[in-house]
């Protein structure tokens, strides 16, 4: 499936404007919420923005964003993902899809809806039935070698953000090398080094979103699926190692 589900949605009244739906995924603690806060600060004068947060539990991220005061707080809504954030952006997007459609209807016209995934592992990416484009967020403090590991989010999200670059000297990471590794892993797709303490980097990130919005508005953007899941490891019940498999050969999906 390469198109979003918006065309099949049904509301009885006039259709609200279809916003650019932009996903923000990445491991726990890499700065997804603060990236969204930065984007809202940079773009709130130009675009009408709404935010859906997904937490592993409760609505912590929505509370953080409301406290940051970057948007009218009613335009920030939380979806609880039953301790399984991965499922809510990929296998079962209905909760998020409905939340996005509700936001678009209630605050019509919105230009951009940001959907923040609950922090998960490197294989968690958004289904194109939920978002039009997605950012994958890493940070330098997670280790300079993470970008080299690849995987669907790092390799094929529309944009890879390497966050907290101001921390690099303290964690012995060579930012230029990490960005170069990421660019290699992505075969030339966009990579940005960002720190909210370096406003010029936030401006470049904001410009990327502006450009994506223009392309989307002009109908020039087709949602890409970064998946299928990369081969991954399962511990063996007997405790004797485990096995690596992938899901692209007709194996049934399963819970992790």
């Amino acid at each position, binding site marked *: 499936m390469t198109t979003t589900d918006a065309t099949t949605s049904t509301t009885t009244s006039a259709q609200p404007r279809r916003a650019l739906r932009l996903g923000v995924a990445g491991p726990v603690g890499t700065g997804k919420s603060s990236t969204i806060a930065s984007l809202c600060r940079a773009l709130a004068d130009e675009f009408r923005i709404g935010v859906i947060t997904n937490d592993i539990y*409760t609505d912590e991220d929505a509370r953080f964003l409301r406290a940051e005061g970057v948007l009218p707080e009613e335009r920030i809504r939380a979806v609880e993902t039953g301790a399984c954030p991965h499922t809510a952006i990929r*296998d079962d997007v209905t909760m998020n899809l409905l939340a996005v459609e509700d936001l678009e209807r209630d605050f019509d016209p919105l230009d951009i809806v940001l959907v923040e995934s609950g922090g998960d592992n490197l294989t968690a990416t958004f289904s194109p039935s939920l978002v039009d484009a997605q950012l994958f967020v890493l940070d330098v403090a997670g280790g300079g070698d993470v970008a080299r590991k690849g995987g669907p989010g790092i390799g094929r999200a529309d944009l890879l953000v390497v966050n907290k670059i101001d921390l690099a000297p303290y964690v012995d990471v060579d930012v230029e090398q990490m960005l170069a590794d990421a660019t290699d892993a992505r075969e030339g797709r966009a990579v940005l080094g960002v720190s909210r303490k370096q406003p010029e980097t936030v401006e470049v990130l904001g410009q990327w979103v502006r450009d994506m919005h223009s392309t989307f508005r002009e109908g020039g953007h087709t949602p890409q699926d970064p998946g299928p899941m990369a081969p991954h490891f399962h511990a063996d019940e007997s405790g004797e190692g485990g096995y690596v498999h992938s899901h692209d050969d007709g194996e049934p999906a399963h819970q992790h």
Partner: protein
Amino acid sequence: MLTTPTPGPDRSAALLLLSDGRLPAGGYAHSAGLEQAIARGWVRDATTLGDYLRGRIHTTGLVSASFAAAAQHRTASAMEAGDAGGTEGLAPLGAALAGLDRELVARTPSPALRRIARDLGRMLLRAMRSIAPSTQPVLDAAGPVLQQPIAYGTVAAALGLTARDAAGLVLYEAAATPAVAAVKLLSIDPFATHRCLVGLAPELDELAERAAAFATADARDLPALAAPLSDIAAELHTNHDQRLFAS
């Protein structure tokens, strides 16, 4: 003209699809009150989990299943009328289901439970619009917002299932949702949770028969059994910090 799927035992694949926990309709994020029951010490192990599930299916489970059966019957009747005389026949469906919805809401004292059932019902209807586009005329006539048991009944009818199917499905869901959530919330053998479900199977079937018998009943005459602790748990859960499940 609509084509009403033929009801009967040959629709079992549709029943399996609808009752499959992997159906992408948002249900996996809910524990049906179990998380709070565990937090309060009401459920502690496989034995008390079994008691919790039994209490649930015999009270709110039976009520939900009866409303699902009633919704199936009203939807199937409207579809037959639609087949006979074009889409005009579906027109009264919205009002019939809204009447059922009001009766079910009246049987649900907790505002949190009403909101959760409404959200789950909306998600099921939203998901089915994409999953089974052929059901769209029926779902449009039914309306986008229905309590979950009524949504199940309507969707079941749209897929050609019977009132008994709808009742059995809702009862199984009432037991399986918390049973599956238990493994994330308790230190419990996952086989033990399914052992509870197997143990309840004869009761689930018997209750489904009873619920299905209400399919044609007036909405006012549907069962009104209550489970007050479930209502209290749902209210407590809305303010429970660091919950894993939305309900």
